[in-house]
């Protein structure tokens, strides 16, 4: 077996075990948190189902009986874990729709938004970072530093509102809110992406400056390789070893941080689902949403590991020599 295959197998086994542990831990924690929230869960679930005008003791009693909320907590938790082992996430307590359907829909929304935001951040931040690295301390570098400071300081809510006012209200180029079409995705993706682009620019700039000063780059230039090939084959690839793990961390932060932007732009995502599930005590949806988010983080980390393994041969060689 090659050293690359061994390393690959090790990563996958390690992350699979991590995913399993996270699934059980997150499920139990969510269950305990919801159980210990103040107020009567039956009333809250009934309010989520029927609207507050129609919630009374009778509807709450019906909900309590239907969902077995008066059963011991351990029995409810074991039932959920048993269903989870069979990959059955059950139905939402509020909407009665299958949780897989509900969470799947919201997950898709969050993934769309996160992916689009990462593309914006990588293109914008990466470009600014590479340009700034061409002459450290120069005008472009100073402008890039100012950009980083500005977009890092602006909270997503304010940035989003500014974009809405300019691009939607004033220029009429994009819909202010909405979900489902490409045009509706642009403003929330720009809001998240621009906010993230500052740090991407900073990390890219530093990584490129460091790689440009490396001996192998100077050697490639000395032997007459064209600038663009030096940039692509040596600088970008080596800078990517630093940038990819960083983007992985940012992706995780993005997934967790979409709540504000989803709310601002009426974008249907997991953040939206989580807030509603907590508010209505919809335990299956809450557990499934948190579970999906946790597994998403494990997945992103796995992808980052695999990409770094592909980009950077040094650990494999060290392992082979050992």
């Amino acid at each position, binding site marked *: 077996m090659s050293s690359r295959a061994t390393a690959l197998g090790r990563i996958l086994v390690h992350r699979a075990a991590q995913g399993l542990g996270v699934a059980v831990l997150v499920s139990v924690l969510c269950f305990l948190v919801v159980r210990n929230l103040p*107020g*009567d869960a039956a*009333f*809250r679930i*009934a*309010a*989520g*189902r*029927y609207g*507050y*005008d*129609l*919630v*009374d*003791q*009778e*509807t*709450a*009693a*019906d909900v309590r009986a239907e969902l077995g909320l008066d059963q011991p907590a351990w029995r409810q938790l074991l039932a959920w874990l048993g269903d989870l082992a069979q990959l059955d996430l059950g139905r939402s307590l*509020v*909407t*009665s*729709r299958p949780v897989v359907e509900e969470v799947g*829909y919201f997950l898709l929304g969050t993934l769309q938004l996160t992916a689009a935001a990462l593309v*914006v951040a990588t*293109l*914008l931040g990466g*470009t600014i970072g*590479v*340009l700034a690295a*061409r002459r450290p301390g120069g005008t472009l570098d100073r402008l890039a530093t100012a950009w980083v400071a500005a977009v890092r300081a602006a909270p997503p809510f304010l940035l989003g509102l500014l974009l*809405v006012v300019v691009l*939607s*209200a004033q*220029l*009429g*180029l*994009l*819909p*202010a*809110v*909405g*979900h*489902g*079409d*490409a*045009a509706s*995705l*642009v403003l929330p993706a*720009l809001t998240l992406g621009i906010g993230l682009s500052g740090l991407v620019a900073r990390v890219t700039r530093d990584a490129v400056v460091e790689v440009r000063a490396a001996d192998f780059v100077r050697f490639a230039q000395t032997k007459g390789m064209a*600038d*663009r090939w030096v*940039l692509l084959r040596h600088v970008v690839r080596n800078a990517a070893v630093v940038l990819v793990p960083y983007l992985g961390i940012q992706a995780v932060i993005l997934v967790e941080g979409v709540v504000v932007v989803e*709310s*601002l*732009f*009426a974008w*249907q995502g997991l953040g939206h689902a989580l807030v509603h599930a907590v*508010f209505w005590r919809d335990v299956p949806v809450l557990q499934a949403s948190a579970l999906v988010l946790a597994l998403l983080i494990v997945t992103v980390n796995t992808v980052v590991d695999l990409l770094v393994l592909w980009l950077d041969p040094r650990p494999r060689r060290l392992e082979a020599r050992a």
Partner: protein
Amino acid sequence: MRSSTRTRLLLPLLASVVLGASACSAGADRAGSAEPLRIVGPFEVHSLDPALDGEVFTRLQVSETLVTSDLEGELTAGLATTWSSSRGDRAWTFTLPRDATFHDGTPVTPGAVVAALEKAAQEAASPLAAAPIRQIRTAGASVVVELSRPYLTLPAVLTHYSTAILAPASYGADGHVTEVIGTGPYRVTSAELPASIQTTRFDNWRGEAPAVEDVTFQAVGRPESRALMAVSDQADVVFGLEPAGRERVSASDDVQMASSLQPRTILLKVNAGHPVLRDVRVRRALSMALDREAMAEAVLREEELAATRLLPPSLAGWQSDGTEELTHDVEQAESLLEEAGWTEGADGIRVRDGEPLRLTLLTYPDRAELPALATAIQAALREVGVELSVTVSNSSEIPSGQADGSLELALIAKHFALVSDPLIDVADVFAPEGSDWGVMSWSDPAVDRAVEGLLAGATGAEATRHRETIVDTAQEELPLIPVSWYRMNAAVSDRVEGFRMDPLETSWRLTDLTWSS
């Protein structure tokens, strides 16, 4: 050199990609009838079940109830063409149209209607569940609802969205609604819950074909976003605007405001069994301490919404000439508290037998104005020496607090016409055993007799007398202290003609709409 030029081109290229994605630009001219009518509202649709989120589908005129109501709140034909009672009002017969079909092309049979009504009657949240139903059966081309006792308000109950009639194919094997297959002038083409619904004209509808062919509904939670959509040509009808949004829309040339007073009152629900609040003088003092006009002006931006009586003027049959309107009188409030034994304490909080006059008020954020009004009430009561602690929590804490007796005061927005006859809600609100969204630990024999008389079918002068007894006693005793009334509003684009606001919100009357020429 060339590589750096390409790199520099990346930024404008990115900008053009981003802006190019907005091909369906918001502000582009719309070709009227070729485009769908775009409706935006705050209501998310989390379920297809009529008992849960059915109101959106009845408002969109996708599903129909047997009976509906007109703009004046009078009962009118829905899916049923006529209805009548027999056997001393113990049986109601609803005649179905012969040419009605569901959106899947299947005929509307009495059997399908019976099945839909039986499902609704089993839902605790449906008003139909409270009806004394013995049996629902077919009788030729009609449906008969047999009752164990006279129940005159049954037709009004059947205006409620939870009783909408769906085709048998709407239900999955487990009984859950998988698709809304109704009988209305519009059918669902796609539903992306909870955010949006698309409908189109149903060509086989038994009535006159509506002028507007396609309709989209989008749920948008933030009121400022809804206002922005209204003024920037991203929606044709926008419901649920906040005061600031209303002002913005009013300043726009291309959008008009439509509004109607809702049969909803924002009120203080009082635990009349509480050691302090059981004294009617204290309840009257709390009422007199409230400067309703100032609160309505500051929070709702409309002084006229100050609620000087429990039931709003839109419920014309429930007004009484003998009712003295509630007023703001700080001096009188203070003297009433003195009379009740509450004297001024050192820190400005009144005391009696060494106990300070401290109360807790519970409210909920579902309606943005409630926490703001709660704060204003807190300040007003502080002026007369009552310390009020405000808790903003989930709305379900109110019925929960009623159940365990812990509730002292709650600020709620109570709808008095969830079905088209307010009597159903009034009877519930003044139930002698208490009501989750009505009185708590308070009852009055005269009110009980009046409600019973109305439920038994009193008419004419007798009915008027009963209604006056109820509203006059409520005004005297104040088991519920009115704060403000409620105006529902919508921003309507100039492209649309014929929009009329239904105060009961049974339907958005899309069939009345036409595109401006």
